């Protein structure tokens, strides 16, 4: 049997982490192919529905990447996201979704190597946690 290849959704803000991801690209910094980036203008835009949708429709992990506190292009959208996501981590924990499957990190625009590292680490962590619960199941 082939190794578990997780499906990971990565929500990133346009100004910091998407730029960092682009920088990782231009710097040719390889990271595991399992991650799928969804570009948003700001992490403060992330609706809990998006994350639940991901978890219930087969994603094994969800990563949210925003600007460092104080660097948010929209002043404090990242802090709003932080509050919402920590709340959601608690919520999904009730249903056996390990809170480590939902991760929030600050990755600044110039932090291409950090983006690479976070992606590599997160994929590795999800591999350790194993497949999520909704893959190939009649759940949504």
């Amino acid at each position, binding site marked *: 049997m082939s190794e578990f290849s997780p499906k990971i959704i990565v929500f990133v803000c346009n100004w910091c982490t998407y730029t960092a991801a682009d920088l990782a690209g231009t710097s040719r910094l390889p990271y595991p192919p399992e991650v799928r980036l969804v570009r*948003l203008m700001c992490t403060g835009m992330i609706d809990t529905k998006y994350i639940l949708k991901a978890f219930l429709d087969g994603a094994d992990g969800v990563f949210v990447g925003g600007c460092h506190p104080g660097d948010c292009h929209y002043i404090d959208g990242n802090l709003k996201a932080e509050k919402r996501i920590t709340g959601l981590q608690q919520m999904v924990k009730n249903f056996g979704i390990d809170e480590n499957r939902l991760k929030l990190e600050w990755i600044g625009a110039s932090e291409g190597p950090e983006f690479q590292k976070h992606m590599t680490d997160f994929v590795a962590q999800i591999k350790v946690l194993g497949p999520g619960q909704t893959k190939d199941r009649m759940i949504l």
Partner: protein
Amino acid sequence: MNVQNPKIGVYICHCGMNIYPKVDVMKVAEYAKTLTHVSVASEYKFMCSNPGQELIIEDIKQRGLNRVVVASCSPRMHEPTFRKACETAGLNRFYFQMANIREHSSWVTLDSDMATQKAMELVTAAVKRVSFHAPLYTKDVPVQKSVLIIGGGIAGMQSALTAADAGFKVHLVERETYIGGHMAKFDKTFPTLDCAACISTPKTVSIGQHQDITLHSYSEVTELSGFVGNYKAVIRKKPRYINEDTCTGCGLCAEKCPVSVPDPFNENLGNRKAVYRSFPQAVPLTFCIEKKDPAPCRISCPAGTNVQGYVQMVKTGNYQQALNIIMERLPLPGVLGRVCPHPCETDCRRSLTDSAVSIRDLKRFAADNAKLEDVPLPKVEDRDEKIAVIGSGPAGLTVAYYLRRKGFKVSIFESMEKPGGMLRTGIPDYRLPPAILDAEIDHILSTGIEMNTGVGLGNGITLAGLKEQGFDAIFLGIGAHVPVKMNIENEDADGVIDAVPFLKEENLERPGSAKKRVVVVGGGNVAMDAARVAIRSGAQSVSIVYRRTRNEMPADHEEVEGAIEEGIELINLVGPKKVITQDGKVIGLECIKNELGPADDSGRRRPVPVEGSEFIIDCDMIIPAIGQRVESSPVLEDTDVDLTAWGTFNVDQITFQTSVPSVFAAGDAVTGPATVVEAVAGGHRVVRAIEKYLNNEMELLEDEIRQENKMAGKNDFLPVPEDVPVVKRAKTSFMEPSERKNCFDEVDLGLDEASAQKDAEKCLNCGLCCECMECVNACEVKAVDHEMEEEIIEVDAGAVILSTGFKTFQAEKLFQYGYGIYPEVYTSLEFERLNNATGPTSGSIQMKNGKTPERVAIVHCVGSRDSRNNKYCSRVCCMYSMKFAHLVREKTGAEVWEYYIDMRSPGKLYEEFYDRVQEEGVHFVRGRVAEITDITDHPEDDGRLTVVAENTLTMKTLRTPVDMVILSVGLEAAEGSEDVGRMAGVSRDKDGWFNELHAKLAPVSTPISGIFLAGCCQGPKDIPDTVAQASGAAGEAISLLSKGTVSTKAEISFIDPELCAGCKTCIEVCAYSAIDFDGSRDVSVVNETLCQGCGSCSSACPASAAGVKQFTDLQLMNELEGFL
């Protein structure tokens, strides 16, 4: 559902070899064709090329596509390109979605199959999403026709002139006092060796004169808000304390200024004054006064005397101005110059290096060497209000003098025959000669104060009586003259006389009343005075009995020393128990020994008597000196004034009013026995209070005092220089003990002029400007204004250019190069100043010892191309290093070694310059310098530095002795650029340089539209590149402003009124106050001009009534559907 029959075209880009072959684009295209609603899918080598775009346009037109997906590079790169193509074909630009299969797949995925798989999923998501796109429209809004430029170096100046010449208003903000930036410090520029000043001064002058340029020098932008076309900036203009409009730049102020400090413009190689202009050709030409927080000496003086000011005046020999400054706060300069316990010296920061400045002695020196009658009095109108001052001690004299200076009528009532209070009766003449006191009191009275001696409370006047006489305010400065008893047996015996009456009698009448063997009880200054007076008035032996040890004695160190020198015996750890009498006369004092117990409330260890240790000291006179209290009964005779538990007057701590509104009090009568300067300090507070009281402004006082307290204690002082020499503290000369103990002549003879000036020179000028007001006196056009405050200016701008420049690498970080350790190691900026005609050596290249160097090493890449510091190449160092080599050869003929890693000379005439310098005989050594040390291998090189490096061409280690080393330090982003970046929303790269929008195609733009970059803030570059980029940035700004309008963002929030429940959560989370509440419909409404499209509202709205166009729930949920 807002979509009918989506027809989607999918285009996969090869990006040459960047996407293909890592991603099998053919496979992706074939796959895309199978997706729902996709009617065409193809791949092409370069989708962004004209033929690529044509492909899309043709398909839209021919096949009737209504949605387009391009899978290629990052949308940050080509989204606008393809959107434009859609628009060209007649399709709304927002019917387009991009899948990033280059940066996010082909470039970062090692396995080709995986990369292809990922690309297919990215395309699927984009296809799903684009079905739900809707057309969006933008609005045009007018732009402000002005440009804000932050940073006035060569880049900012070039941008400013370019934009202003195009007819736009420019606000140029520079934080230094001058414009020109680093270039203003240079002497020559490479490779043409043009004089830097010659090519930059025309620009600075034009800036100063241009009608469309507003120059905000010595200013910083503190806030930047708004959006492209309509930015708003808040500028904080620091006070120069010199009026820009009137200053003629003549420089007389600087000539007079006594304060000399290291000059940062000259890289601290030379000094400048507290009032300065960095260089003669500076624009603006206005001088500037630099102030720090008030010096610690000034803060710690209870009376707030401008200590730094008069010390500086003593230094420059201007004793009269020194006295003038003292007299601003101290009415009795000669007195305090002799008896002040000088808390200022305790706080003097000079003691961090050697010893405190002898401030008190300097004050005395100034008082003794200037004329009281020449002290200027303020010109004020006389006022009608009358004030009665009761008591002529230091508090009363202060109140009288300073109220008189404000124009009030003042009468003093003194119950003794001569004025002076405790100054006269309590302080012995050998410390304070009566002539000094008389002269200073006479001077105070000469300002028009009425003195009534022999009249006091209970002795001719009463409080009520004074009020009846029409006094508008009364000051009680009656001191504390009643001795405190010892409470021991036989205390009233003949031969026991308290210190206060003893001193009074001796001071006023000098009867020689001391007996043979005298015991003084107490450890304070009064005890010392009593003992020393006793020995002068005939005692054969004097002992001082004190209950703790010498360490705990409250008396001044000098006084104790003086007493011991005069043969007075200290008996410590002993308490009086009983007076032994014979026939009613004292024959001895029974004492008990003490041990020190635990500390009491005062922090001193409490004496504990040792039982059974009693002993008797034979004596015939006992002088208790253990304290005094206030004689309040005459005051209370007709007026009920509140007292404290200690018997002092109970006054309000702010107003110094007693419980009777028009009656004020201060000095010992309030504090209990304290120092002269504390009495003066109390007097000042009363002066302010009485003035406010008589002006009916009492309520302002509290605010004023709170404001002052808030200002205090920031402790931002001029740093103590590292190389302060150790200078011995000036000591006054004293009369010989043997001589002085028999007379009342002044013991302390004061300082001589030379030592006074030498000691004044020790002052570190903690407050920088000493506020001696010499500049005010020197300025012919009255441009100096020490009261100036910072200004806050708001400006509008359609575009912003950041040109904040660079700073140089801190060479101290590389220990091995010995910068800061060996004096002959210089940084490149230091060398620029050393070589500059306006620099500290007037352009002569010389060592610190004044000699011309014979051997000079120049070390490249200091802080650059160094994985431990900055990895990048700073681009300019090779060229300026060779410029240095040429200049050193030309000016000194010294032998020069250049230590380089690689020689970087790409540029017009740069390589030719390299050739030329080689031909001039400069040694080029390829190898990074390992170490610079003062250790030499040969004795003849002693005193030289050794440069250790491996010549990697000859594979030999070289140890080259040289006289001077120049470190070619690299460039780093300027101090504060992080704050500017945050303010403007422009991110910085890992090295701190501002991120441009695109490294190649948009090098002067930023991701924030309307904000542009010029010069080194974007990365290291030389002057030609900086100027080119600055013109480019100005060009971008002009292009933006010329159009006159900008399109509003289409990707902003909307709120569906059908769904909105009016909970106002969105209003709460909106950081831009861009949502209003429509009370008539109970729904929230987006203000489209303010909305930035961050989507905080959208995620906070549980009903999804709020959303962001182009990032709707429907679009994102379907994008996810595509991924999952």
